[in-house]
C-alpha cells in the first residue's frame, strides 16, 4: 500500500494515500468539496474554480526540516489566496478549510459566475434530478440573479454532435470533462473546444460526427445537461426510473450495467427499459460502457419477440402449449439418439448452457457452441483467474494481443489495455493489419495472414520483443479471430498457451490466456464443455437439431441448406428469426432483461444479472425450457430455481467450485466513490450494490497438470489468379440479431462492405464507394468498396455478420 499522509480537513483528522488530491481525500473522509471539472479518472486541470478552499501548510524550519511549533502545535501558514482542492496534493500536517467564510464565499462566487451563462431550464432538462449543478444551486446558489437576463447569451439548444449524442450549448459549463475523457481515456480526440473566452463551444469535426465508440460516457460524466444521448433524451425524468443491475450481453468483456426502467403509456402501461447505464466495477469496466452496450439493448423489446410456443402443422407454425411443444421436441430428440445435436450460442447464461450440456451428455447427443472461434478448452486450462485486473497492470506486465482489433471487438478491453500501457505495461500487438491499439504498443508485429502461429512462436526467440516477453513478470495474451476461423484460432490458442506455459506465466493473477470471443458467454460454454465444430453444415445435416439462441439460417445459406435437410429442428430464441421460420418447434425464451442468471466473461469472471422488466407472453428462461424437454426424455434437470442450477453446476464443473449466488453478489469498496448523493464523481454511473462477481479457477491454479495439445500450423489458403484472399474481420456494429433492432445504430452499421488495398482496387478498376459482386464458396453478394492502405494487396477484408457468410480466410472473386 502506498504511503499514508495525515492531514486535517474541516477540523477532522484524516489519512489519505500520498499523491491524492485534497478534493479526493475529502471525499474519502465523507466531506463533499464541490467540483465540476475534477474527476478522479482524469488529470486535474483546476479550471472550473468550484473547489476553492483555504489551505494551510505547516512551517518547516529551514535548517532541520522539522515543523516549527507554536503553542504546542505545528505553526500553520495559510496561503493568501484560495486554492483549488482538485489540484493540490495532500501533505503531512496540511490544514484544509472547506467551510470557512472565505472558502464558502469563493465557492458561491464561482457558482454565481457559472449561472450567469446558464439557461436554468431544469424543468425540461434530461439531467434535472441527477444534476450536480442543480444540486449545488439548490444548496448554495443565489436566489436572485444580479445579471441581466437580456444580457445572457443564448446559444443553440439542439446540436447533434453525431447521431448518438446531442449538445445543448447553453447548458455547457466548459468543464472539458467530455473532451478530456475522449482524448485522454478513450483516445478518440473527436470533440473539442472551438473559439475561446465566453464563446468557447464544444464541436466535433469528425466524419461521422463524434466518431468514437465511447461517446455515451460523455453524457454520464457531463456534470450538467449539456450532453444527452439520442436514445434517452426527453425519454423520461430520472426520478421516475427504477434501477436494476445487469450485465452487458454484447461482448466478452461483461460490463456491469444498470437498466433504468419505468412504466409507460407508450408501451401499453408496461415496464420498459429506458436506458442502459454503467454500474461501477473497477475490475471490469470501471464506470464506462461502449456505445454498443449502451444502445443495442432494444432487441429485448423488439416487436418480433416470441411470446408463445409454436408447432409446425401442415407446414405452418401454429400456437401450442408448452407441454405439447416440449414433448414434441423431446420425442424427436430421443428418437434421434446419436443424431441429436444441440447448437447453442454464447448469448445464453451459464445455467442455460449447463442444462443443455447435461442434456446432451445424458442422451448421447452432441453439444456444439455456435462460434467461429475455438480454443476455449485452453482458456479453461491456462486462462486468467482470481486477482486479475487490467486496471492494476502497469510496469512489469506484458500484454500480447494477437489477431484481434480490440477497439471493434471488445472496446472496454481496448480502453483498459491502452491505459495499462500508459502506466508502463509493455503492449505487444501482432496483427496482419493496422489496428487502433498499435498507437499505444511498445512493439507492433505485422504478419501475413496465415503466419499467426509463427509470429507467436517468434515471441520466444531472442530479440527485443522476445526479451520483453521473457523478462516480463506477468504476461497476458489475448487472441482473437481477425482473419481466423475455427481451426486457425485453435492453433493460435495452442501456440499462445504453449508460450504462457513455457514462460511460467500461468496459474497466477494477471497471467494467462484470454479469448476475444464473439459473444458474451462463449467462455461459459467452453467451461461447460461445449465444443466448436468447423464443418457445421455436415454436423447438422439429417440430424435432430436443437438450436438455442442462434440464427444460422440468416447467417449462412449453407447452414440454411443443411437445416432443410435436417430430420427435425427445434428453435429456442428470444425473437423471431429466419431460423425460427423453418423450425418444427419454436420455443420462446425470456430475454436477459426479464430473468436472472450468470455470464462468464472473457476474463473468466462469473457475474450475475437480474430481472428488470416483466416477462413477455409465456416465454420461459432457457434453462427451464431445456429441463422441461429433458423431463419428457426421462432426464432430470433442475428447472425451477436458477440458483439451484448454479449450485449443481458448481459441484460438477471444477472451475466453478466454491462459487454460489451469494458469493457473486459480494461487493468490495471501490474508488472512486460514486454512490453518494453529491453525484460529482461518477457522473451518473451507478454504485455497485449487486455484486462484482468472482473469477473461475483454472487447471493451473488448482495445481492440476496442464497439457497443451500440439500446435497445428494452419496455412492460409492460396487464392488463384483473379482471386483475392477474403479475410473475415469483426466490427463493433454489425447486422447481428441483438444489434439490428437498435435503429439508432443503423447509420453506424452501414452496408455490407469489402476493404481493398488502393492498388488492388486500382488494378481491378474499382473505386471507393462503388458496389461490387463478391463470391466465394458458392455464396455471392454485393458489397461496397472501401479502401485500406494498411492491408496487403492480395487480401480483401469482409466483416462478419454483414450479409456474407464468412467464417475463415477463403479465396474469393471480386467483380
Amino acid at each position, binding site marked *: 500500500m502506498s504511503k499514508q499522509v495525515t492531514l486535517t480537513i474541516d477540523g477532522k483528522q484524516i489519512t489519505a494515500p500520498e499523491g491524492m488530491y485534497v478534493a479526493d481525500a475529502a471525499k474519502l473522509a465523507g466531506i463533499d468539496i464541490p467540483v465540476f471539472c475534477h474527476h478522479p479518472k482524469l488529470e486535474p486541470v483546476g479550471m472550473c474554480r468550484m473547489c476553492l478552499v483555504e489551505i494551510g501548510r505547516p512551517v518547516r524550519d529551514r535548517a532541520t526540516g522539522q515543523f516549527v511549533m507554536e503553542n504546542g502545535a505545528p505553526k500553520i501558514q495559510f496561503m493568501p489566496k484560495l486554492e483549488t482542492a482538485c489540484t493540490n496534493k495532500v501533505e503531512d500536517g496540511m490544514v484544509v478549510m472547506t467551510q470557512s467564510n472565505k472558502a464558502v464565499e469563493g465557492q458561491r462566487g464561482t457558482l454565481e459566475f457559472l449561472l450567469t451563462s446558464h439557461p436554468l431550464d431544469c424543468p425540461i432538462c434530461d439531467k434535472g434530478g441527477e444534476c450536480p449543478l442543480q444540486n449545488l444551486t439548490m444548496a448554495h446558489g443565489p436566489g436572485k440573479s444580479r445579471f441581466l437576463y437580456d444580457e445572457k447569451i443564448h446559444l443553440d439548444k439542439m446540436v447533434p454532435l453525431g447521431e448518438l449524442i446531442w449538445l445543448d450549448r447553453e447548458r455547457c459549463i466548459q468543464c472539458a470533462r467530455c473532451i478530456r475523457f475522449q482524448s485522454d481515456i478513450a483516445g*478518440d*480526440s*473527436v*470533440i*473539442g*473546444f*472551438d*473559439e*475561446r473566452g465566453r464563446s468557447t463551444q464544444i*464541436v*466535433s*469535426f*469528425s*466524419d461521422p460526427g463524434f466518431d468514437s465508440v465511447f461517446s455515451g460516457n460523455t453524457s454520464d460524466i457531463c456534470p450538467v445537461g449539456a450532453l444527452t444521448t439520442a436514445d434517452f433524451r426527453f425519454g423520461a425524468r430520472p426520478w421516475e426510473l427504477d434501477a436494476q443491475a445487469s450485465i452487458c450481453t454484447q461482448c466478452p468483456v461483461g460490463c456491469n450495467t444498470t437498466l433504468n426502467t419505468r412504466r409507460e403509456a407508450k408501451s401499453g402501461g408496461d415496464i420498459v427499459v429506458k436506458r442502459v447505464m454503467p454500474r461501477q466495477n473497477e475490475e471490469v469496466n470501471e464506470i464506462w460502457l461502449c456505445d454498443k452496450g449502451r444502445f443495442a439493448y432494444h432487441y429485448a423489446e423488439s416487436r418480433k419477440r416470441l411470446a408463445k410456443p409454436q408447432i409446425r402443422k401442415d407446414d405452418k407454425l401454429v400456437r401450442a402449449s408448452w407441454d405439447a411443444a416440449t414433448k414434441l421436441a423431446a420425442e424427436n430428440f430421443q428418437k434421434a439418439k446419436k443424431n441429436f445435436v444441440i447448437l447453442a450460442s454464447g448469448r445464453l447464461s451459464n445455467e442455460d448452457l449447463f442444462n443443455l450440456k447435461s442434456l446432451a451428455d445424458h442422451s448421447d447427443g452432441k453439444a456444439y457452441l455456435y462460434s467461429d472461434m475455438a480454443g476455449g478448452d485452453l482458456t479453461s486450462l491456462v486462462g486468467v483467474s482470481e486477482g486479475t485486473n487490467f486496471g492494476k497492470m502497469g510496469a512489469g506486465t506484458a500484454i500480447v494481443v494477437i489477431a484481434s482489433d480490440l477497439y471493434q471487438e471488445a472496446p472496454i478491453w481496448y480502453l483498459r489495455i491502452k491505459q495499462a500501457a500508459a502506466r508502463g505495461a509493455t503492449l505487444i500487438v501482432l496483427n496482419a493489419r493496422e489496428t487502433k491499439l498499435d498507437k499505444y504498443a511498445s512493439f507492433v508485429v505485422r504478419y501475413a495472414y496465415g503466419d499467426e502461429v509463427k509470429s507467436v512462436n517468434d515471441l520466444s526467440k531472442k530479440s527485443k520483443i522476445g526479451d520483453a516477453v521473457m523478462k516480463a513478470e506477468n504476461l497476458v495474451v489475448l487472441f482473437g479471430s481477425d482473419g481466423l476461423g475455427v481451426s486457425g484460432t485453435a492453433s493460435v490458442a495452442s501456440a499462445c498457451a504453449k508460450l504462457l506455459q513455457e514462460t511460467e506465466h500461468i496459474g497466477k493473477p494477471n497471467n494467462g490466456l484470454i479469448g476475444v470471443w464473439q459473444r458474451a458467454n462463449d467462455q461459459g460454454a467452453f467451461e461447460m464443455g461445449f465444443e466448436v465444430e468447423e464443418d457445421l453444415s455436415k454436423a447438422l445435416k439429417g440430424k435432430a437439431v436443437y438450436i438455442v439462441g442462434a440464427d444460422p439460417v440468416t447467417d449462412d445459406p449453407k447452414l440454411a441448406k443443411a437445416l432443410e435437410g435436417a430430420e427435425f429442428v427445434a428453435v429456442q430464441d428470444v425473437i423471431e428469426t429466419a431460423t425460427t421460420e423453418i423450425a418444427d418447434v419454436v420455443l420462446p425464451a425470456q430475454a436477459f432483461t426479464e430473468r436472472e442468471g450468470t455470464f462468464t466473461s472473457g476474463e473468466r469472471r462469473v457475474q450475475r444479472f437480474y430481472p428488470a422488466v416483466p416477462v413477455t407472453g409465456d416465454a420461459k428462461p432457457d434453462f427451464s425450457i431445456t429441463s422441461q424437454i429433458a423431463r419428457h426424455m426421462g432426464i432430470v434437470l433442475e428447472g425451477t430455481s436458477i440458483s439451484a442450477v448454479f449450485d449443481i453446476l458448481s459441484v460438477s464443473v471444477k472451475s466453478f467450485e466454491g462459487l454460489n449466488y451469494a458469493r457473486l453478489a459480494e461487493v468490495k469498496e471501490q474508488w472512486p466513490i460514486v454512490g453518494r448523493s453529491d453525484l460529482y464523481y461518477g457522473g451518473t454511473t451507478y454504485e455497485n450494490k449487486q455484486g462484482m462477481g468472482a473469477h473461475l479457477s483454472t487447471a493451473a491454479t488448482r495445481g492440476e497438470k496442464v497439457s497443451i495439445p500440439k500446435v497445428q500450423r494452419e496455412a492460409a489458403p492460396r487464392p488463384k489468379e483473379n482471386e483475392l484472399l477474403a479475410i473475415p474481420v469483426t466490427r463493433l456494429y454489425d447486422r447481428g440479431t441483438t444489434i439490428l433492432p437498435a435503429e439508432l445504430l443503423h447509420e453506424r452499421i452501414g452496408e455490407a462492405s469489402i476493404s481493398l488495398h488502393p492498388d488492388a482496387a486500382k488494378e481491378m478498376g474499382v473505386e471507393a464507394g462503388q458496389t461490387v459482386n463478391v463470391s466465394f464458396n458458392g455464396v455471392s453478394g454485393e458489397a461496397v468498396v472501401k479502401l485500406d492502405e494498411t492491408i496487403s494487396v492480395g487480401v480483401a477484408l469482409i466483416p462478419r455478420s454483414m450479409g456474407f457468410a464468412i467464417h475463415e480466410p477463403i479465396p474469393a472473386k471480386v467483380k
Partner: protein
Amino acid sequence: MSLAKKYPKEVKQILSKYPPEHKRSAVMPLLYLAQREEGYISKAAMQDVAGIVDITETDVAAIVGFYTLYHDKKEGKYRMQVCTDLPCALRGAEQFMDNLCANLGIKVGETTPDGMITLEAVTCLAACDKAPMFQTQGPDGIKYYENMTVDKTMELVEALKKSGTEVK
C-alpha cells in the same frame, strides 16, 4: 492538392524545427501555410494538416478556432486590421477608423464589394507609439503600417486594388 505535395520544401522545413515525436508542434506553421492562398482554412485543409501532424481534424479545428489570425471563412483578400485598443485609441485610432470606414464605404467587419479589403478592429499590435496604425493580413503574410493617415491608407488601398498585391 495536399500541402505536402504543393509545398514539400516548406512542410519539411517546418517539421524539422520540432522533435519528431512532437510533430504536433508543427500545426500552427502548417496552418499559416494552408491559409496562404485562399486567406482562410477550409475543412479539407484542416484534414490535410491533421494528417501531416497525426492529430484529429477536431484538434486542428480547435486550434483554428482559438487563434484570431486563423480564419475559417473566405473574406477579403486583405484583412486590414486596425488597432483600436486603449493606447492607440488615446492617440486617435477610433477617429481614424471612423474616417476609414467612411472612405471605404464599409463598416467594421465588412468587406469592400470588390472583395479586396476586409476591415477589422483588433487589440494591441505592439506599435502604440505609432498610432494610428494597422496591419494587413494577406497572401504575402502580415505587414505593419504605422503613423498612418486616411489619405496614405487610401493610397495603399488603391495600389492593392490595382496590382492585386502588396506594395513595398
